[in-house]
């Protein structure tokens, strides 16, 4: 069955689209909401968004594949993105990525079989004062060490 937006999202989408003098300019906020509702931007969601914005599905794909935060495949319930840029790597990001790989049993780019975790590395998150840092879904966690990671993971049910 093809996906459909909930009524609440539809209302929000209408308001967002009205902000722009051209409908397609709303594509990023629309894709953010789409991903929140359906988990990713696959072929079905591309069609849905294209219809909403009066553009072709290929135009949606062009945009969706350009931006790293838009996922073509579903991610786990907890999407762990560890910064591996300079400030974080100076303070040991690489060993933390190895630690997470060992602890969750997946490499960056992979999802656990129970779909609980997806692990990935990411470029600078803009939180260098709390390096090394990571983002789980949209929550920032900084000044990380192995102990702190243990504690954070324990809190994720």
């Amino acid at each position, binding site marked *: 069955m093809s996906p459909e937006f909930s009524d609440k999202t539809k209302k929000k989408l209408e308001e967002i689209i009205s902000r722009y*003098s051209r409908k397609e*300019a709303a594509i990023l*906020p629309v894709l953010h909401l789409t991903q929140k509702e359906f988990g990713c931007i696959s072929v079905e969601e591309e069609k849905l968004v294209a219809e909403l914005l009066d553009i072709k599905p290929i135009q949606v794909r062009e945009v969706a594949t350009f931006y790293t935060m838009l996922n073509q495949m579903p991610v786990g319930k907890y999407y762990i993105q560890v910064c591996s840029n300079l400030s974080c790597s100076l*303070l040991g990001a690489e060993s933390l990525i190895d630690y997470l790989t060992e602890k969750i049993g997946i490499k960056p780019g992979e999802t656990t079989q129970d779909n609980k975790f997806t692990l990935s590395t990411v470029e*600078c*998150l*803009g939180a*260098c004062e709390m390096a090394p840092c990571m983002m789980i879904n949209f929550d920032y966690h900084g000044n990380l060490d192995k102990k702190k990671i243990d504690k954070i993971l324990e809190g994720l049910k």
Partner: protein
Amino acid sequence: MKEKILSKHFVLENFYKIDVYLQKKGYQAVKKALNEKTPENILEEVKAANLRGRGGAGFPAGVKWSFVPQQVDKPKYLCVNADEGEPGTFKDRYIMSHDPHLLLEGIIITSYCVGIHTAFIYIRGEYEAVALRLEKAISEAYKNGFLGKNILESGFDLDVYVHRGAGAYICGEETALLESLEGKRGNPRLKPPFPASIGLFQSPTVINNVETLSNIPSIILKGAKWFCKKGLPEDGGTRIFGVSGMVKKPGIYELSIGTNLKDIIFKHAKGMAEGKKLKAVIPGGLSAPILKADEIDIKMDFDSLVNANSMLGSAAIVVIDEDTSILDVLKVVTRFYSHESCGQCTPCRIGSSWINKIVRRICDGKGKNGDIDNIIRLASNILGNTLCPLGDAAAMPILAIIKKFREEIESYVSN
């Protein structure tokens, strides 16, 4: 520095809420601008303040505004660059989280000055919580009559919207930002035409960084002379220096433009962490050419750093210790630019990924004779040969690292 311009309220709890902001004499600058000043007065004041862009390029804000044509039959736009993607940079996050109304005041005054009625804040997608806080602040400003129709009964109208990016460093480049805001891939445009004449939706557009705009209210309240005195005559005000890496106290430090880099690291950020020794410093975000430990006795302003063959950029200072291999730094730098190249210009697309492959091979212990010269050749062919500054931003730090640490890199190639 006694009085801070931008960060003085960061420590106050709940300052992001409009009631608290108004208690501390918030929105006085907007009142003064809209009730007492003409757009021409404001433009002259901002020009005289020598406020240079805080995003990286350092272009004088007042001059930029003056390029916008006065009589056009199209709407004009303000795009606030809150993409903050330059590695090492986190200052705008502080402004937007702790003092969103200061930014809104800057947006209102700028829009009034240039004759703009719609502003978009383009914020990086990862800052979801910050975007929500901005949206809350905007709705408070509407309720209190500082946004919307006929602001403070001045006859001036303004709408402000938050637009979230979705993870692309290139969208911090102003024309890529416009493409992205129009709903396309973030591929930079050829300039000219400049955004001031043909920008968002083919309309005249002003694009300013968050920190740049947040300086406007105090220029209006206290005047250009006062502002210049806070920094250098030709480069007014303060900078929020973001210090990260191997220092005892990483964080933001708002200091006069022209403050010595050595003092920022050793006095303000309390020196090296874990008793380590300083090896090198990146003074203005990852794109800024590296400085060796003996080159940091330098004033942090646009011109001093250009004279030292580096740049002030976003004033993000990354401190590197002696135990860090320069090859690891090079690996991060080359990986970053090969990942973030938009792919539009061949020298940048192919060059950045080719360099990264060579560096990764050296890291794997499989370096070959000629690798370093190849990297130099490839980087030199990116330099100046791309549509947007990302090409230069990729090539410059790579060339500087090799020039200053060639011996060390050679030792990894031969071993």
